[in-house]
């Protein structure tokens, strides 16, 4: 299949269109704007639907409408825009609608800046809006994965009727790497059992998240939690690098995992048995695999561009072992040397 050199943000659009994504609704924000630009360019070429919305709130509600009509729908944003979308996302989760939302994370809090960070981890993985719900969260670490995980995101979104967040960052969005194009194009069909598509066969359907009866609302919560359990059971995804005999394990996702990988090689050269554990899905978090490594006596370091948001999950997974942290903020990437010196300190 053909390969091209393209940037991560465009790769999202490639993945989405080959996944049968029908609509894109967006609002400009750096460093995610290229996704919007590429969508405005490519969606109309194949008669897919593109709207530049008046705000991120409007954009996510357009997603709600088109997803409610049974279509494959994509939205993309970054920190401040993701915060605005949280209202819509909890409604989408409550009404059990499928969609894919790409977060090209930037530095915060507040307006922060347009440099990369991974500080939207909690917002993406723990719900983010009100109520008990979870997004499925996938974390690409290359341009190829920006495409492939976007596509996989649509499959998961429809398998579970659940919002999927692709959690990336400014570097992944802007870096250019070879992309191997998808080998086939998915042709979606509307599921008349739940969609509301303005048609005879879907006339009896209803998309809603309100339920006044306490017991019914509780039952709905149980139903959602049962779904999240199935997701936890079936959709764990991670990749190991030189873990077989590792005594120090770096846990890292996205762009930071690539720096961590270089640090593993450097540590091995220096005679330290280091390895990398890279979660590809952040929700569900790979709890069992990390626990197994902990039981083997491994020491852990979380390498993330946030204040240990993921480290909390590693701690829980590993039975509250101490977990080291290497982090940077404000748009700065983690340096390979600082990871290496932390490995030396822990080993």
């Amino acid at each position, binding site marked *: 299949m053909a390969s091209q050199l393209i940037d991560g943000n465009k790769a999202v659009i490639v993945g989405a269109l080959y996944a049968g994504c029908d609509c894109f609704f967006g609002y400009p924000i750096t460093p995610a704007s290229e996704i919007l630009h590429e969508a405005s360019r490519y969606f109309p070429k194949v008669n897919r639907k593109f*709207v530049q919305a008046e705000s991120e709130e409007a954009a996510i509600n357009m997603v709600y409408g088109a997803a409610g009509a049974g279509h494959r729908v994509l939205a993309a944003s970054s920190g401040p825009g993701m915060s605005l979308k949280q209202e819509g996302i909890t409604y989408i989760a409550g009404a059990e609608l499928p969609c894919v939302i790409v977060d090209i994370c930037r530095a915060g809090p507040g307006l922060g800046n347009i440099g990369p960070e991974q500080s939207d981890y909690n917002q993406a993985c723990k719900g983010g809006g009100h109520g008990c719900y979870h997004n499925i969260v996938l974390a690409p670490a290359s341009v190829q994965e920006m495409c492939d995980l976007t596509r996989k995101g649509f499959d998961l979104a429809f398998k579970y009727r659940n919002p999927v967040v692709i959690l990336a960052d400014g570097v992944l969005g802007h870096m250019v790497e070879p992309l191997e194009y998808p080998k086939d194009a998915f042709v979606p069909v509307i599921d008349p059992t739940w969609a509301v598509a303005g048609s005879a066969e879907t006339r009896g359907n209803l998309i809603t998240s309100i339920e006044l009866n306490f017991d019914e609302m509780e039952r709905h919560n149980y139903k959602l939690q049962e779904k999240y359990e199935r997701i936890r059971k079936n959709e764990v995804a991670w990749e190991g690098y030189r873990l077989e005999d590792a005594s120090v394990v770096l846990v890292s996702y996205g762009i930071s995992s690539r720096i961590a990988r270089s640090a593993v090689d450097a540590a091995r050269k220096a005679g330290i048995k280091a390895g990398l554990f890279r979660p590809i899905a952040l929700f569900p978090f790979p709890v069992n695999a990390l626990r197994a490594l902990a039981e083997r006596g491994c020491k852990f370091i979380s390498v993330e561009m946030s204040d240990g948001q993921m480290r909390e999950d590693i701690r829980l997974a590993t039975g509250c072992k101490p977990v080291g942290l290497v982090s940077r903020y404000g748009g700065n990437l983690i340096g390979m040397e600082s990871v290496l010196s932390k490995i030396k300190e822990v080993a």
Partner: protein
Amino acid sequence: MAAVEKVIGGHPGMYATFPRKGGAAPTATHYCPGCGHGILHKLIGEAMADLGIQDRCVVISPVGCAVFAYYYLDCGHMQAAHGRAPAIATGISRAENDSIVISYQGDGDLGSIGLNETIQAANRGEKLAVFFVNNSVYGMTGGQMAPTTLIGEVTATTPTGRDPQEQGYPIHICELLDTLKAPVFIERASLSDIEHIRKARRAVKKALEIQRDKKGYAFVELLSPCPTILRMDAKAIANFVNEQMEKEFPLKRFRDRSGEAGSINRAESDFSQEALDKAFGCESGVCVQFQDDPEFVAKGVKIAGFGGQGVLSMGLALAQASFGSGRYVSYYPDYGPEQRGGTSNCSVVISGQPIGSPVVDHPDVLVAFNRPSLEKFAPTVKKGGLILYDSQAGSFQAPDGVRAISVPATGIAEERGIPQAANTAMFGALMQAGNLGLPREAYGNAFKVTFAKKPKLIPKNLDILEAGAHAARVLEMSSKK
């Protein structure tokens, strides 16, 4: 809310009974007696049934007393977040060309929290009928001030009456929307009594006819009695609407362009692989197999200069040359705060194995187009590394253990009449002296890909490429002597 339930089950366009609502009165609504919502439901139901469009209709119920419109109207339903119905409507309407979307909203929902969505959907001319229930208060939450609350009107949050000094004036939504070009139909009607309801019925039907014919945006405001919150009996509330509300909100057909308006149709999505391959230009794309080659020592290149000097396109060309040679490659443009200040830089990593960080902190080769870049990045170059800099940057002493070559890149490009091709000359120097482990022809081939859309520029650029290489060769030889 409801003290006594009002029976409307079995009316045209309504469900015969209301199982979604449940409870003891399967054909009664949850609305208060005398409430305008129940009347408007009937009008919408009748019009849908009359026009035979129920299969195509999707009603979006708001946050407000009408949140459960889906108990009653016999069509498809979505329930919205507070004020977001017009955005949801946009999503449905864009996705489903044949759908008829109805947004049903109260004054708090539409005129306050959702005013932006309201105006923007109207301004885009979405295929959408909006029914706007103006009852001058927030009903569902217990009678707080609404954007349409009258001057002096007492509400739960204006206990001494609405004071324009403090709370401003009532918002006139029809008049606001009437300033926009796109809407096809705008009317304000009233649900106060039989006579008014007759007129309102015509307006509701008109708005849905426009939807049936896919003509665009139709807006109907309905002055509506809320006897419960306003604590009035049937007669008093009718008087309030007819006299006080109508004085502030005159009934009027603001606009009807349904005669001129054509129908809006959006083409069906094309999901075929052929169409996508064509759109992305990858039917004839190259297929590159990356071979793991641990022997190949990874190289990091940093390119920096002023914006407009072709820093980023040179980086992309180098990435292309590496890609074409089957090497793993990454390119990363630094888009930090300096971008606005006029300088830019990018990193290219070339490797025989999957690449770790795409950001080059310690380059093997630094290409600097100007003095500030040279001074900033020269100290970061690895021992044994190389600096190529434009001669225009002036004389420069390389750090210990680093080679530096002053390349007259701008001069070469200017001599050949394309001053903006200094980066091509520099690319030639990189090909000559960079020692990046890429075959020479990869550099020229990269241009053929980059300039695929402007083939006329290729020969001239190849010429400049060679001139850059030549200059570097001469300088290298002289420095060895």
